[in-house]
């Protein structure tokens, strides 16, 4: 066979195989290192049915699916997802809007994902800008009512819990937490218990909350998702200890949480460091507190629920360690990156409540 013909055949094979790859849905499963290619054949709020390229069929619990890259999804969707993961939420929302416009896929799941991701990014912004909470709540509720069997249904419930807690609406947070408890996934049930404990904390029922947190923290975890929930429960426990002024115990528990968390689990670590900062501050250990908050600024600034709080404290603690220029820097960062956060308001007017 002449060389040119052989090359052409190889090229043709490559093109064909590439089209096979691009013509598949790619599913990422939590705790599984490799991604699976194939076809999503069905989606409910409890499971995703999937057929691999090798013809293997399986049902994956919805809570274990971390991402689906849809066949034919718009390119803008991928970069918007990256923006969201990097904490650039407004850019993410813009990206999702572009993805919605560019979407040519007839797969309704693509649109559903775009819609949910948009709402999720909006909700995350609202967590740092309480004025936006009512709108976010309304949209999420609409989403749930229109997509009662979506794989995002229970995630939406989780967001509703967070938003209502920030909004200090215990009853609504409790309703959302109970909805979450109806999910089939064990980690979601654990999340529901944690949410209910946080509601109890909001209602100043520290003992009740502590019992709930202890129950979850004492469960046997069957996978990374459940491990993560246990850590969240320990964070809640640490908060209870903090509220009881048991600072050394809280600091020790938070250390445990940090060490047990996955190195890149920014959410758990951000919260743990903020709580540690609080405990150190309360124990008059300003430099330790500064270092704890600094972890959030330097390593976990994508965690928008905690970054402004850390910046607020840094803006005060830098002065305590004789670096007032750095205090100004932190204050400027807080003001410019989170103009509507309660922490920014507190910075401007110390009488304002925050957190």
């Amino acid at each position, binding site marked *: 066979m002449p060389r040119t013909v052989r090359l052409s055949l190889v090229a043709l094979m490559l093109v064909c195989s590439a089209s096979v790859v691009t013509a598949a849905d790619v599913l990422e499963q939590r705790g599984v290192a490799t991604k699976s290619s194939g076809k999503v054949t069905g989606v409910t709020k409890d499971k995703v049915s999937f057929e691999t390229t090798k013809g293997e069929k399986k049902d994956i619990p919805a809570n274990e699916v971390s991402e689906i890259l849809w066949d034919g999804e718009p390119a803008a969707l991928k970069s918007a997802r990256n923006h969201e993961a990097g904490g650039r939420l407004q850019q993410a929302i813009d990206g999702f809007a572009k993805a919605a416009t560019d979407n040519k896929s007839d797969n309704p799941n693509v649109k559903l994902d775009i819609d949910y991701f948009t709402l999720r990014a909006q909700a995350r912004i609202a967590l740092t800008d309480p004025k936006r909470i009512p709108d976010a709540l309304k949209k999420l509720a609409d989403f749930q009512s229109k997509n009662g069997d979506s794989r995002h249904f229970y995630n939406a419930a989780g967001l509703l819990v967070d938003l209502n807690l920030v909004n200090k609406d215990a009853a609504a947070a409790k309703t959302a937490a109970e909805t979450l408890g109806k999910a089939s996934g064990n980690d979601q049930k654990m999340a529901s218990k944690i949410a209910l404990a946080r509601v109890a904390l909001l209602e100043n029922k520290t003992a009740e909350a502590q019992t709930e947190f202890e129950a979850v923290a004492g469960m046997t975890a069957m996978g990374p998702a459940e491990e993560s929930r246990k850590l969240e429960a320990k964070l809640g426990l640490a908060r209870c200890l903090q509220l009881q002024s048991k600072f050394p115990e809280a600091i020790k528990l938070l250390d445990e949480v940090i060490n047990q968390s996955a190195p890149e689990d920014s959410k758990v670590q951000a919260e743990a460091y903020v709580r540690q900062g609080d405990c150190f501050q309360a124990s*008059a250990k300003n430099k330790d507190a500064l270092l704890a908050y600094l972890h959030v600024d330097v390593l976990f600034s994508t965690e928008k629920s905690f970054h402004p709080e850390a910046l607020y404290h840094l803006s005060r603690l830098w002065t305590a360690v004789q670096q007032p220029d750095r205090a100004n820097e932190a204050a400027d960062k807080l*003001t410019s990156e989170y103009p509507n956060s309660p922490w920014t308001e507190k910075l401007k007017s110390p009488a304002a409540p925050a957190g």
Partner: protein
Amino acid sequence: MARHRFALVFLSVLCLLTSRLSAAEPYLNFVEGLRDREYFDTALEYLEAVEGRADLPPDVKAIIPFEKAATLIQLAKTQRNPEAANATLGRAQAFLEQFLKANPDHPKAAKANSDAGNVLVGKGKVAVIQSRSPSNANKRADFQKQARDNFEAARKLFQDAATKYDKQWKDFGAFVDPKETEKFEAKNDTERMKIRAELDVAIVQYEEAQAYDKEDPKYQSTLKDAAGKFELIHQKHRSQVAGLYARMYQGKCFEEQGDLLKALGLYGELLSHNADSNVMKNLQAQVTHFKLICLNTDKKADYILVDKLADEWIKANPQMIRTRYGTGIRYEKARALENMAKARDVKPDDKKKVLTEALGLARLVNRTGGEYRDPSQAMITRLMAALNYDGTDPKDFETAYGKARELVNKIKENKDLIRAAKDPEEIKRYQKSFEAHLEETARMLNLALSLRKADSKIKEVNTCRYSLCYVYYEQKRSYESAVLGEFVARRYAKDEESESLPSDSAYLAMAAYAQAYNAKGNNDKQTDIEKVIGISDFIVATWPGTPKAIEALEMLGKMYLQIKDYGKAAETFEKVPADSASYLKVQLMLGQTLWEAAIEGYNKPEGERPPAAKLLEYQTKAQETLKKVIATLEPKLADTEVLPDDLATAKLTLAQIANQTTQYAEALKLLETDKRAVVTAIAVAEGEKRPASGVKSGRFAQEVYKQILRSYIGLQNLENARKAMTELEKIATGQGQDILPIYIALGKQFKEELDRLAKANPDQHKTVLKSFESFLSNMLARKEGQNYNSLAWIGAMYVSLGEGTPDKTVAATYFAQGSTAYNELIAKAGGDPTFCTDPQLLAAKAQLVACKRKAGEFEAAVEGITELLQKRKNAIDTQTEACYVFQDWAAAGTTESPKQWAVAMSGDKALTATKQKPIGMWGWAELSKRLMQSPEAAKYMDSFLEARYNIALCRFKAAAAMPEGGKQATKKTGEMGRAITEIQRTALQINMTEAQYAKFNGLHREIQTAMNLTPTDIVRNPPESEVAEAKAAEAKEAEEDKKVQAVKKKKRQTVADNKRAAKSEETAQSSSMLLMGGVLLLFVVGGGVWFVMRSSKPKRPSLASLAAGEMPKIVVAAPPAKKAAPKSTAGATASSAGAATASPKTKPPTKPKA
């Protein structure tokens, strides 16, 4: 926390209330304190709470609205949002109106008018800003009108205030006797407020001009009128701050009228004043900013000068860099750089550098926000265009990572340029360019990290983190660097994919904590030490046996030395493997450490002292280790080779051990008689200046001769002892030191040695003490050859013996002998003017006073101190001694005692109050004030705390001596409460060491117990910024006090008196400083040679004493460049071969690898 703080501070107020001052004073002090700390919410809450109380005195109730307004006005100043600030000002205005309506003739009515005026000016300024906003273009005229209306109303209020103040001022009468302190001060205050109100009238006119368009003729005419008003104020009050501010505004008016020459002339005049106070520094910052604006105009276009002046100001005022003026100055510098780059003759490379620097600055300014946010954003856009940046940053991790790596690789290039540059200007330029490069590199690395995805390669992510850690280290952002380094190290220690990144990061984190520890102004070094220990431990445990672990062991050992945990230091050094390159060096450190551990153990009180066998084991092991190292290393030296520093140090330590164990001949062999005795290593040529560190340093050489002297005393060899003294004096003279303080410290050192011996071997102690007494007595009895040197030594030794003797009768004989020696010295000096210098004579007289005091001869001590105060009024040690004379007298319980507490506290004020003659004594209160207001306050922190402690002690003791019950019962409780408040105030102001805290806390608890209260600990380490703020408040208070004192002094003293006093004080001050320096220098010598060698700075024997010290040096590995895995720093040892002897300093990090 706020509530907790509120409760704590509230308790302090309650204590204050027990000492009935004026009814309003405690409440207002408290509110003012809260405002000073910017706890506006708490202040308002407090005022609300107090207002509702039924038992509130009417005078306090009346001014609550006024205080609320004052709080809100200050709150408004901190609010960045104009609308929010306006709303707050509106509330303030309402409270002021409420106050003025209810109290039109209240003494604070004038102040209320001024405050109301300021509220209106604030609102007017907001309207001006709004009028200039492009979004308000169609409402421009409305906003301008609104602004002018506010200014007009404000002017009326200021004029009214000025009239009221003028009347109040005139009511004081033409002359107020300065002796009527309160009235005199009140008149001065009123005058200041009057001038301030006049200045406000003029300022409001300047502001009014801003409410016109520049083309409007009213703009020019209003500015002209304002300039005239400022001129008048300046003419009348040119020596006052308000006068200087008027001058500045006059310049601003000229500047805005386009008369730059006149404006620059006035700015130059204002900048020529000494900036010796915060007020002047603020004024000059503002003036500098205005000057740069002038120079940056097209008309002047002196951009190079702007760049230079801005740099000078930034360098001189780092603490003000992010203030409004600092931001303005940086903005002007960025503008100047942008314009410089436009010049035709700028080379492309230079242009790029200048623009990059401008871009970096513009980004910084932009981040600061405020009024410069919009213009700096516009500048960033222009600069990006000029630099051909497309303005878009990478959108994915890989691209950002690649770009960041390119920038990291250029770090080396930048550092090489700085290193190769010879010309200081060139170095400065490269340095600036380097800083801009680091800023951009950090930005890109952060961007890359924010763009990482769940599937990004962890090695690349960690390389980014490590590189950022390194960049932060270079930028001296030590804690950011440490946080990143420690994260990679601890979370990825076992991650094979990350290769050596975790261990490199750990090492860098250790270096970063060390850098933080060494940073100027660090007020909490203990945490940094703990962090260094933590990460060093981690390195040793995680990567055992590696070169980094060995370096970490050395570092860890040194850190334990820094915190004086000698046992752990020794344990750590012992872990260094015998086959490591640094083994022998570490063994030297180990030997010295063991000796330090033994000394420390002996010095501990009985309950805490380790068993004698353990201490003996330390001592023996120290000797064995040192002998072994010397025996290994010394034979390797060539015949002509001089004893190296580390061996000289080891031999000196061995000699100390020999002296301690009465092996005097052995000590002399090591020090003086062996072929390679230590004296051969410390010798310098005649007339040659001794270096600041190393074995030839004055400190080391002195220690050698002290040990030689000690050996000859042990051998009862008078002649050779005198020779050693002569050598000591020679070394001291060469160092510009007086010998007497050295002898005083030596006396303490010998006393400690005797104490140790008493604990280790009581029989031997008796023999040595007897031998020492006999030696001293022989020396004192010997008349021939007696000189200043020998008599001073004898005096100092006797005083030390007296201080160390619990038996008062025996101690009195020692003090009497000391007095004899000093009296003889003074008599000889009287007969022979060449016998000693005047400062030496004064120092001897001071020691004589101390002898008399310690011997309980208080009248004689007072007589002596009176003479000294005449000659050395401003000397801290003399004033301190005077306080102790009266305090000890008071404590002695004689019939004269009770009134002496007051003299100890208040000096002349108390003497004159009891119709006694003043002696030029300040007392503890005045002394503490002066120390706090000293430009070198930090240097005198110990003296300051000593004074503050003794104020509280004297007050408490005086109160305790008052009878129970009866008329004085309230006063007794009040005074004790005051003492508690004084302690609490000090604890809130100063970040104390453990020992200092324990001392103050002990007194605090003692007083509470005496008051039948449950003793509690004082609050320390105040939250957040209270330390700095409390210091600022104190400085402000002191500044005010200084002004009053200055006025009084001016009126009281004639010019001739001033000149005479200044001359004699200058002499006394210099000798005092010399004396203090000498004492400090020798304070820590103890028995350890190593501390003499480790740092040229003196250290106190406490953890927090490390304020004066530095971390041992660390060599930092550079971030990996093109290849992710950086080479190990094996071989780059933590310290040079002379680490045991060289002064430890942090070595600059190595260059990044290309």
